[in-house]
């Protein structure tokens, strides 16, 4: 067992699960979406990105790309949240909330691709 692989898999899965946990619920209901969960999703996603730096293989490049997409989407969601909470005149509206959740849902898709890649890699190199 390789500790590096454990850490790598852990962060990728955690990024996907946190993301999923945040997205699930009514899309425009702020009660169903926890801001701490979004924060955790952003942080874990960033860590997963850094962990993917420097993998020279083709699959490593795709991994990095999916992570960058997830980061971008999650950070965009966080920025919208910050705007809604602090700058928006009318505060958090259902419209803004659904924007946040849909951005995070996009990130979830990228994270799912990451997990699929991880599984595919594991299946094809199971003897190592």
């Amino acid at each position, binding site marked *: 067992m390789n500790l590096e692989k454990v850490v790598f898999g852990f962060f990728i899965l955690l990024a996907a699960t946190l993301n999923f946990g945040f997205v699930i619920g009514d899309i425009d209901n702020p009660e169903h979406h926890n*801001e*701490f969960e979004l*924060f955790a999703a952003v*942080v874990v996603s*960033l*860590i997963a990105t*850094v*962990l993917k*730096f*420097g993998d*020279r293989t083709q699959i490593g490049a795709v991994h990095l790309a999916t992570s960058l997409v997830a980061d971008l989407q999650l950070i965009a969601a*966080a920025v919208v*949240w*910050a705007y809604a*909470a*602090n700058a928006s005149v009318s505060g958090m509206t259902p419209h803004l909330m659904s924007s946040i959740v849909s951005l995070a849902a996009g990130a979830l898709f990228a994270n799912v691709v990451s997990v699929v890649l991880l599984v595919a890699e594991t299946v094809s190199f199971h003897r190592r």
Partner: protein
Amino acid sequence: MASLLAGFWQRLQRGNGRESARRRERHARLAPAARESGLFLVLRRMRAPLIALIVIYAVSVLGLTLIPGVDGDGRPWRMGFFHAFYFMSYTATTIGFGELPHAFTDAQRMWVTFSIYLTVVGWAWAIGTLFALLQDRGFRRALATIRFARRVRSLREPFVLVAGYGQAGRRLVYWLDLLGRRSVVVDVAQERVDDLELAPLALAAPALAADARDPDSLLMAGLVHPMCAAVLALTDDDEANLAVAMAAALLRPDVRVFAQSLSASVRDRMQLFGKPTVIDPFDRFGDYLRSGLRAPEAFRLIEWMTGPPGSTLPRLRDAPRGRWVVCGHGRFGRHVAADLRAEGMEVTVIEPGAGAADDPGIIVGSGTEREVLARARLETAVGLIAATDNDTSNLSMIAAARAANRELYLIARQNERSSRRLFRSIGLDFALIPAEVVAREIFSDLTNPALYRFLGLVRTQDEAWAEDLLARLQHVSGDRLPLLWSARLDKATAPALAAWFAEGRSLSVGALLGGRSRHHARLPVVVLMRVRAGEAVLLPGDFVDLVPGDELLLAGQGEGRRAITAILAAESPRDHALLGVDRPAGWLWRRMARNREAQDAAG
């Protein structure tokens, strides 16, 4: 210059489309791609500090959002993520705007104190790692390698791969550059690579500090690049040269390989791989010396023709026949003594080493000592060769020998580049610079195969012939070394002459050089050789005819060469020289002239 050698490069690059496609394909397969860019190298090394930084920020921000605070009116208030991140951003980067948006409670201040120290540590680690990385030799080397591989890959013109930027490599890179030819250099020493970067070359030569014995570095330097025209193995180490020749023969069998070697066994091993041209400077010098003793004029001729272009004509004394003294019985001394004996000379050898003691014919002692030199009876000798591998001893031997006999023919071996000024000013008849011998040999073979062939034929001619040619060369080129170039009379290199032949006209050597008509003076050019279908004619006379496809070897100065090149290439100078007619050069004037001719014919 460029157009002259274009033919040579084309010949080296010759091959049909399929051949070159195959070569490109092999290049793509074998050449190690620069696997990653510098940015990714940085990112990989920065992984740990970056993760630490993310975690530190996350913990600090999260703490700020969890700790209860109060707003300006003392009501309970909690910091949102946005404000927490904003606060941490300006605090961690030590900008410090103060406690925003509301004054902090003591609990918040405790947490902020803790996170300030935490973030400062994180930043210090990240920035420290980054700077250490940028300073790191290995990292900079990796960056240089990536840059080098990229530069080599993007080369679109033929280049020569030079393994070993020592004395011989340095000369060749410089001379090739004079001809507008690019080199790619691999040398094991970083200082030499740095040196090359500062060298005043017209075409920057990509250089890599790497061991040439490693095929990967050769591949990176373009061994299988479709534009690689020749490989030169010129390192100071025979084994490394062998490795280079081997790699070239196995990975790129269609490219010419030149290798320098001092050892006979390495030479034999090199010959097992392809057909490398192996050069032993001592052996070549022995040959020079023998031909100098046997045929001084021919020797002088060769000396002139292989000199670096444009330098002044060396004034050589004839090597005398008689008893020679060789100081130093190492690899070179042994070689040269054997060559002299083979030429029928009596040889006295002086050798300080203990190994010489068992040979009674050798005077044991240092050639720098007066008493030892006296035993060699310099006053009755004709020449002295200072052949040790130590420049200081060689110079002092020369000084001592000159004091004993002013008439001696003095030859010294110059080992280090740094002592070249001393050797130049001590007034030798001949300074043997092994690197120079190697460089000249390769240069003339590489840049002008016709000349190389000509030099081989010179050795078969007698002294009177050589003397006559020397006089003619001196007539056309004065006291500078003649410029030698070859020209092929085909469509690619001589379009104007091809058109001339296509009109059914004939051309002789005399007509090409001119001088028989009143229209222009004879060009200061000597035609040294005409090659037709592999058959060479030396010094063709004025009435020898030329046909399409002939190759000429010519000698002269820049002016003569420009004139010949113009005659071969363009119709207006051609007609001026061959017919004495001023043909308009521009399109419009040509049309008008043609109309006038047509009218004249009609009228």
